[in-house]
């Protein structure tokens, strides 16, 4: 592999560029209109425009991506995560163009992309799945049959889209009377979101945790599972904080989840990096949930405690290399790692997206801190894509120290110009339930509902006084009358600190 086209943007494109540089591979970027000056474009060796800003006209256009790969002379394509990373047609198109796809086979992607097929694969591998209906319910199954099936699964249950993901096409039903309506709603949502109205049932577990197992499979038949990640801190089914190891997984449970994960992956001949997601109930029983057939957003925490470079391994596996790692060490995490997904959202306004220009950025650094980011002062967070601006990762010798380190890093993290979830994380990491590891997948939504919109960035009398002082001095020194100032709401103008300080002597 000599030249790799990265069919993605943002921090994950930057992450893959770094792996390329360290391996002597030339990275090729693609970009939509609004991404012309994005870091992944500026850090790559070559860069190809692939269309307008809307993802459907650029990052999701298989034809344009293949065309860019061919024009650049790339011999491989890395899909990152999101966009086309779990699209078997893209994987096929890359192969058909004679290029190496850094990921699993189109067959493995297709199987695991279908939730009922994935469940069937897990059952074949002898791995427990969440109790539920085994076949997809398409639109012409009669209501009575649906009700019987639901009763056999048991209430409360979830109606889930077969092609689902990200909580779309999903409904909780507690009362059998609501079943028919919920199925209709889920089907309609699924049809809109995925073009496939099929749904199925899963029993809703009580306070489950989301625990997942990263694994690597090579093309020589080796599948190695790695230490689990705890991803139960979710907002509306989207992970916001991940950590490894899980505070509740014992070495014995780790070994048993790891071999279950490997069994599922082997059952579909899985290659490259992938993740088996499980639900873990309060009694320590785990159930296969689904498989992500790509690099995960949260892969860095696994890198921190295992020392592996997962992107490097993806590329090595795609080149046909054998995995030569010690399986025992992969399940023996060193220390503890936590990731906070920093989003351009306003946590004090219902987590509404907050796109716009970052006017000032101070990123944390120092011992145990890693910031995987594609943000920079002066750059815009576009409205078209996932508002993830940075993944802040803290490692330390144990979980309490990792939490202390992450809180220190969040204090250092300053993003001005847009709102971010940094104040939310500073709040969350101080909650007793988080500190004690007492949480489940609905924990965050429950406490957010209970807070009822109280602001996360709580001010004190001291910080308010300082803000008042700073605002007064800022306004005094920025007054138009100095002849050298900035307008009250405008952008900074011709600027000299010395001159401005001089001018104030006349106040």
């Amino acid at each position, binding site marked *: 592999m000599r030249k790799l086209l990265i069919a993605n943007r943002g921090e994950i494109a930057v992450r893959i560029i770094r792996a390329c540089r360290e391996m002597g591979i030339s990275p090729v970027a693609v970009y939509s209109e609004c991404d012309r000056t994005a870091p992944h474009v500026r850090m790559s060796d070559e860069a190809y425009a692939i269309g307008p800003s809307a993802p459907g006209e650029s990052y999701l256009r298989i034809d344009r991506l293949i065309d860019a790969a061919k024009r650049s002379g790339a011999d491989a394509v890395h899909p990152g995560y999101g966009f086309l990373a779990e699209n078997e047609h893209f994987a096929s198109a890359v192969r058909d163009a004679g290029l190496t796809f850094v990921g699993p086979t189109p067959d493995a992607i297709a199987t695991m992309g279908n939730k009922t097929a994935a469940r069937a694969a897990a059952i074949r591998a002898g791995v427990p799945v969440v109790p539920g209906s085994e076949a997809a319910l398409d639109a012409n199954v009669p209501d009575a049959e649906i009700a019987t099936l639901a009763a056999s699964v048991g209430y409360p249950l979830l109606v889930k889209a077969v092609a689902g993901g990200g909580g779309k096409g999903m409904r909780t039903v507690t009362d059998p009377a609501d079943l028919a309506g919920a199925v209709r709603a889920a089907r309609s949502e699924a049809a809109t979101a995925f073009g496939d109205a099929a749904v199925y049932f899963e029993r809703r577990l009580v306070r489950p945790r989301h625990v997942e197992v990263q694994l690597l499979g090579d093309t020589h038949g080796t599948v190695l599972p790695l230490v689990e990640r705890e991803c139960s801190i979710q907002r509306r089914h*989207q992970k916001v904080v991940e950590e490894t190891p899980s505070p509740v997984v014992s070495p014995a449970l780790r070994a048993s989840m790891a071999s279950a994960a490997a069994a599922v992956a082997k059952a579909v001949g899985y290659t490259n990096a992938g993740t088996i997601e499980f639900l873990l109930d309060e009694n320590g029983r785990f159930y296969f949930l689904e498989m992500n057939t790509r690099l995960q957003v949260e892969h860095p925490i696994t890198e921190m405690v295992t020392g592996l470079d997962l992107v490097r391994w993806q590329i090595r596996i795609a080149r046909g290399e054998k995995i030569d790692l010690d399986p025992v060490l992969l399940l023996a995490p060193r220390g503890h790692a936590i990731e906070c997904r920093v989003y*351009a*959202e306003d946590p*004090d*306004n*219902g*987590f*509404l*997206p907050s*796109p716009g220009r970052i*006017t*000032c950025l101070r990123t944390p650094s120092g011992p145990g801190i890693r910031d995987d980011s594609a943000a920079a002062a002066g750059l815009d967070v576009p*409205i078209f*894509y*996932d*508002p993830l601006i940075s993944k802040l990762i803290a490692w330390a010798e144990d979980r309490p120290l990792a939490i202390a380190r992450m809180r220190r890093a*969040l*204090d*250092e*993290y*300053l993003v*001005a*110009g847009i*709102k971010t979830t*940094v*104040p939310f994380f*500073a709040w969350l990491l101080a909650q007793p339930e988080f500190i004690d590891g007492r949480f489940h997948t609905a924990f965050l939504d429950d406490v957010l509902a209970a807070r*009822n*919109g109280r602001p996360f*960035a709580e*001010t004190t009398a*001291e*910080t*308010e*006084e*300082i*803000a*008042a*002082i*700073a*605002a*007064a*001095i*800022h*306004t*005094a*020194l920025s007054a138009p009358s100095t002849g050298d100032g*900035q307008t*009250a*709401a*405008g*952008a*900074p103008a011709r*600027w000299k*600190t010395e001159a*401005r*300080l001089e001018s*104030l*002597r006349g*106040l």
Partner: protein
Amino acid sequence: MHYEIEIAGRLRQVAVTRTGDGFAVAVDGRLRQVNATRIDAQRWSLVVSAESKSDMPARVSYDVVTTPGPVGGALTVHVGSIPISVVVNGRRRWRRRDEGAGSGPQRVAAPMPGKVVRVLVAPGETVRARQPLVVVEAMKMENELRAGRAGTVSEVHVREGVSVDAGALLIVIQ
């Protein structure tokens, strides 16, 4: 120089005077000595000391970033990493977005371009403060727009499935 500064709904009287090596700043009559050094257009380093040791330790250091807010006179002041909304000399024009108080119709507009995926209220319906009104999908997320305060829905300008621009009027509540 004298300013009226509003933070978290409370108005402060702030007087700034240049002194030998900085500023004397009185906030509601309490005097602070402030050594303020500008790093760049937005960034300040403040070293603040109180007249007496009683209410604030000597020489407290703050890293501060001031950025313009959405309306004239509004600033966002980051003290450390905490963003604080500040309005200078502008109390008559300004109103906190999520404050329960207030009068007149509420006009709920799309804060970003996106697609309306759910309309949760109909004209004539009464709504509580913070009740979800419309779900707009943008930046790959579904975002609930909520009522600022209780009232009755008088106008619904969108239906499910339509695309809206930033600022488009969606709902009016009386």
